[in-house]
């Protein structure tokens, strides 16, 4: 079965700093990759997704992620974070097994200090 690892559990940055959150998955076949964000007190929202094609995908709010198949990674990046980016970020994957449910990583709590 597939699994997702997020190695950064809690990240603290100052505003305008650059962000990179790590995500690695384990599955040998075709994958679809997602990053979700959960702002305090709100429900999960999709930031971006990768299905195929250009491995560099751009999402909402200036976020982007790069799929590196050889490294089984899908790291999330943002060149300059804002205080409003404070949230929990979850990496998730579905696979070509036909099972449509997402497998989530453990999440990374991002705290941006003004």
């Amino acid at each position: 079965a597939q699994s997702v690892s997020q190695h950064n559990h809690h990240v603290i940055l100052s505003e305008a700093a650059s962000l990179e959150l790590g995500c690695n998955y384990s599955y040998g076949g075709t994958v679809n990759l997602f990053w979700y964000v959960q702002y305090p007190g709100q429900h999960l929202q999709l930031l971006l997704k990768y299905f195929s094609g250009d491995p560099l995908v751009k999402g909402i709010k200036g976020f982007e992620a790069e799929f590196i198949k050889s490294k089984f990674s899908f790291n999330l990046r943002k060149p300059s974070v804002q205080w409003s980016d404070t949230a929990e970020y979850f990496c998730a994957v579905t696979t070509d097994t036909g099972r449509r449910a997402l497998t989530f990583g453990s999440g990374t709590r991002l705290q941006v200090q003004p």
Partner: protein
Amino acid sequence: SAVISQKPSRDICQRGTSLTIQCQVDSQVTMMFWYRQQPGQSLTLIATANQGSEATYESGFVIDKFPISRPNLTFSTLTVSNMSPEDSSIYLCSVTRGTGVTGELFFGEGSRLTVL
């Protein structure tokens, strides 16, 4: 996008009781999923609810503890039976849109249960 409504949004329950969570979607969907998010943790899939067939449960979750109904293509319920404090969690309903395996998953706002 999909509009997903869950009831109740939160509840405080006594040990040994059962609670049913409802999930209503604004349009017909084939597959609905129930997740659990325990305090400070990620989301764990409980089961997949398909209309017209029994739910498919993930390892560690059983029908006796988490019975699920799926009477039509827009509605599902999850019951948390014989609750204990360990069941205190946010329970989320989600649906997928799109064809093949590329559908995006949408989430409701969740039902936050506290078991005393």
